[in-house]
Every structure is written in structure tokens, then in C-alpha cells.
């Protein structure tokens, strides 16, 4: 018995040592669609690099907190996050300049994805449009302000300020009201005035499909990435093209400052940005491509955010504005809407 135990632990030690010798790259990503990523991105990359990917998932706050805590000896080599979070990481000195000369696919990216924060610290790998999904038989949406019309507001689910869709939707509402200040004060106040009418301030877009199906809501601002399930409901639903335009967001890749795997991280990023991988992720409706060489079928294009025209037309909140205003927005929201 004892002998067996000794032999077993020796074996485990050996196995551990062998594993330590293998090249590993630790990445931190959003938790969604991991099965697709594994099949289309992680596994093929591991095969080509002869290395092992260690995947950590979680939300941006956890990711940033972890990067901050391990600043002295980074655990994560590469991470993906929103442009605002990337700017925060960059200001906190947690990320390094990206040597885009080593990214062979860099030139294939849409302009807006190349250096979204204009600090050479991040590269966009996907972006999405945000607009309004609505019942075409019940209403007409020509402007973001239509959402607050009395007959419409009582059937609207508005994104909570804490979601990724919240600030962009408010940003467009602010523009529809003819205001341009980044504090979104007027838009938040307008939503607050209608808070008893509005059905809910949603946190998870997955919840909206059910609410739409049981006719609890007739309209909601959503990201294009959550559009596909709505099309399967068999309801007369449309994607609004308000006169103020569509907004949206972008996710970017960053390299941790002090990572010892910089080359491998860049190699991985380059692979992710390649036309082949971006096309596959688009086909599965996981990520809209940031690579302009990607060609998809009309069917797929219908369900993602696709094309040079779309890319150019998106009115995105600048990351610096989002970052600097975040606390003020939340405070304003909690006092006007949260009570």
C-alpha cells in the first residue's frame, strides 16, 4: 500500500515536471461561447504552436483586479476586454505597447479596430452595433427618443447602466434629445422620469427573448450579437435604424506588462485576427469580424455586425469618456432611476 502510494506520488511529480516544461500561454477572456472558441481558436492554435493555452474566464472587473494584484509577477499573459477597460488598464500601467509589426494580419483590420484608444496598447478583434429590436406590428421607431413615447415606454426593456449596452443607448438618447454633453445627465433624467412606465432595466440580454416571447415587452435596445435568438421567435420583429444612427461597442486584445510570453501572446493574437479564424467565429455567430477580408454568407451577415459601411457608421462612445464618466453616470442613474 505504502509502496504504491510512493510510486504514485513519484509519478505525479514527474508528470508535473513534464507539464512545467511545456510552453504555456495564459489568457483571460469573456466566459461566453467557450465551446466554440475551443473548437475554432484554442485547439487549432495549440496544434500549430506546440504550446498549451490556460484559459481564465470572468468579467472585466475581475480580470482587471487580478492583473492589478499580480502586477509584480503577471499570471495572465494576454487578455481581452472592452476599449474602456483597456484604457483603464493602460492608465494603470498594466499593459504593454503592442508591436503591430509582428501581427501579419494587422493591415487587414478595419480602421476603427487598429488602435481604438490611440495609445498603441490595444487591438480590436470584434465590434458590434447596438440598436433597437422592436415589434414592427405595434410601433414605428425612427429615433432613439421614440423609446420614451408614452405609448411605447410601457413596453420597453431598457439596458441597465451597468451593462455594456446601457451607456451607448443613453448616449444615443442624449443625441436624440439634441444634447451632446458626455455626462448623459439629460438622457438619464429622461429615462428616470419614465422609470415607472418602463418594464424593466435589464441586466442580461438573454432574459429579453423570454420577455419578448410572452409579449411583456415590444422593444429593447440590444447589441447585434444577441439578435439571432429573436429572429427565431416567429414574431414580427425588426432591427431599428434610427435617424441618429446606431451605436455599439468594441472588444480589444491587450498584452500584460511584464509578461514573459510576449512573443507567444502576439503569435496567438495574430492567429485570432487571421481571416480564417475570424471567418469561422463569424460563421458560428460568436464574434463579428474586425478583419475586413472576412467574407460571410448573407444569412450570417444578417445576424452579426458586418461590413465596411456598418463599421464606419457606428457612433461609439470614446473609451476615455466612458472611463472618466463611469462613476458619475452610475451615481446619476442610481439617484434618478434606481430609487
Amino acid at each position, binding site marked *: 500500500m505504502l509502496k504504491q502510494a510512493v510510486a504514485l506520488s513519484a509519478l505525479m511529480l514527474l508528470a508535473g515536471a513534464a507539464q512545467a516544461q511545456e510552453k504555456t500561454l495564459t489568457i483571460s477572456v469573456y466566459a461566453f461561447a467557450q465551446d466554440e472558441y475551443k473548437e475554432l481558436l484554442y485547439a487549432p492554435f495549440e496544434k500549430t504552436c506546440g504550446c498549451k493555452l490556460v484559459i481564465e474566464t470572468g468579467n472585466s472587473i475581475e480580470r482587471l483586479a487580478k492583473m492589478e494584484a499580480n502586477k509584480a509577477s503577471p499570471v495572465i499573459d494576454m487578455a481581452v476586454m472592452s476599449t474602456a477597460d483597456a484604457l483603464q488598464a493602460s492608465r494603470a500601467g498594466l499593459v504593454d505597447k503592442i508591436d503591430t509589426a509582428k501581427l501579419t494580419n494587422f493591415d487587414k483590420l478595419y480602421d476603427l479596430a487598429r488602435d481604438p484608444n490611440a495609445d498603441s496598447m490595444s487591438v480590436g478583434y470584434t465590434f458590434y452595433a447596438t440598436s433597437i429590436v422592436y415589434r414592427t406590428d405595434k410601433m414605428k421607431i425612427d429615433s432613439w427618443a421614440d423609446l420614451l413615447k408614452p405609448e411605447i415606454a410601457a413596453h420597453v426593456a431598457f439596458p441597465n447602466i451597468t451593462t455594456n449596452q446601457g451607456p451607448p443607448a443613453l448616449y444615443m438618447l442624449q443625441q436624440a434629445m439634441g444634447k451632446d454633453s458626455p455626462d448623459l445627465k439629460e438622457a438619464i433624467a429622461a429615462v428616470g422620469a419614465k422609470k415607472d412606465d418602463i418594464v424593466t*432595466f435589464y*441586466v442580461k440580454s438573454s432574459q429579453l427573448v423570454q420577455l419578448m416571447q*410572452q*409579449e*411583456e415587452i415590444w422593444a429593447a435596445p440590444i447589441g447585434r450579437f444577441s439578435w439571432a435568438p429573436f429572429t427565431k421567435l416567429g414574431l414580427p420583429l425588426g432591427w431599428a435604424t434610427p435617424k441618429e444612427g446606431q451605436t455599439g461597442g468594441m472588444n480589444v486584445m491587450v498584452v500584460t506588462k511584464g509578461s514573459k510570453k510576449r512573443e507567444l501572446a502576439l503569435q496567438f493574437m495574430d492567429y485570432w485576427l487571421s481571416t480564417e479564424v475570424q471567418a469561422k467565429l463569424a460563421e458560428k455567430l460568436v464574434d463579428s469580424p474586425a478583419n475586413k477580408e472576412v467574407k460571410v454568407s448573407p444569412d450570417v451577415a444578417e445576424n452579426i455586425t458586418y461590413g465596411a459601411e456598418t463599421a464606419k457608421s457606428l457612433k461609439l462612445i470614446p473609451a476615455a469618456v466612458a472611463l472618466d464618466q463611469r462613476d458619475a453616470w452610475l451615481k446619476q442613474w442610481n439617484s434618478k*432611476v*434606481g430609487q
Partner: protein
Amino acid sequence: MFHNRTEALLLALPAAAFAAIVFLVPVVVLLSESFRSPAGWSLAAYWTFFSEPLNQAVFWRTLKLGLQVTAVSAVIGYAAAFAIVSLPPGSKGRMVGLIMLPLMISPVARTYAWIVILGRTGIVNQALHGLGLTDAPLRILFSETAIFIGLLQLFLPLMIISLISALENLPRDVVPAARVLGANWLQIFWKVILPLTREGLVIGGTLVFTGSLTAYITPAILGGSKVLMLETLLYQRVTVANDFVSASVIALILVVMSFATNLLLKRIATARART
């Protein structure tokens, strides 16, 4: 059973050490965060927290809903427990099984079912409309009422189970004896049954109230951010604002509220017993 205390203590040591290391120490470290300020130990974080009107409103709402759920579940719980203990053993087991059934369903699935039931086109509104009681569908979802209903369903079984076991320990002849002596049902309940089953009420009440304070899924789905509770506010503080100080403040408030309710219920129960 043991030859001496030392032996018993030694046996308890591993479990106690485990609990201390993985539970007590981290909790104390986390909660002590709320008393820390650049100038040293202080209550500043609590002052800041309670000076915000939103936080006050959320605090009172959480307390109010917790008390309402506890009170209503005690009333329904006594009635149900009485009915169940007087059943023959076979049907009693089946009834207890039925009451426990909701506890075995995932809270997410159960709460989503309420969205269907309470919605504008759900059966509650259809029934009300069918009976001619309402003209337009009632807005029940995403309101305090919805959270109340969800929490009540979630925690009522715990109250019923605690009261069943308390009522089963009630000596069989006390109620007939009280009736012979001329007490009415209200007097019997207030002077005989309540004092003798107070342990069950205290346990059930603590479970229900603590549960209502700490439940996250039910208020998150049925109330959403329109009806914030302390637990949903705590989540918002951590995941959105990355503000662990006010999150620890909320966590400690919740702990204190739970302990205070337990003490209060015990006090009420023993006070009645003495009269």
C-alpha cells in the same frame, strides 16, 4: 462517551481549524475592510453609505420585505403545519415531500416560471381579466410584489418544516386540556401553542428572514434593477464599481440584521413564555 474533555476537543480540532481557516478568517478580513480608512480605523464608510438616499431606501426595502415574508410565512406556516401534523403518517410523509419539492428545483428555473405566471399575458392576469376584476393587465413583474411572492414561495417550506417538527413535539393533551378549561382557539394558540412551539418559530423565522436577506437570484430576476435590494446592490458595487469597501459595508449590515432578528425572535418567544 469520551474519557476526558481533551480527547473530545482533539477530535473536534481538525473541523474547527478548517472552519476557522477557510471561513472565519477570510470573512473577518473581508468585513474589516469596511472599517478601514486612510486615517486608520473608522466608521466613515458606514456614514457615507447611509448618507446616500438610494442606500437608505434599499436598506428599508430589504428590511421591510424580509419582515413581511417572515410574518406571512409564519401565519401560513402555522396553518399548514397544523393541518399536516393531524394527518395519518402516510399522507403526512407525502405532504412533507410535496412541500419540500420546490426546494429541489433550481432557483433560476423556479424564478423564471414566475416571470411567465406573473407577466402581462400570464395566468394571473388572464384570470383577473376573465373574472372581470381588471380592465388592463396588472404590472406585477419587476415590482416589490413580485419579489415578495418569489421569496415567500422560496422560503415558506423552511417555515412549515420547522413548525411541523415543533408541533410534533407538542404534548398531545395540552390542547384538549386548554379547551376543557374554557379557552377559545385564539387563547389556545397564543397562550399554549405559541409558547410551546417557539423554538420552531425562532428557527423557521431566522431561516426565512436570513434567506430573504441573502437571496440573490429571486430579487435579481423578479425585481431587477428597478427594485434594488441590499443583495443586488452589493453585487452592483462589486461587479460594476469594483467598490469592495461599500460592498463590505452591505455585507456586514446583512450579517448584523440576521443576528439581530434571531435575537429579537428569541426574545419575543421567551417573553411570551413567561407571561
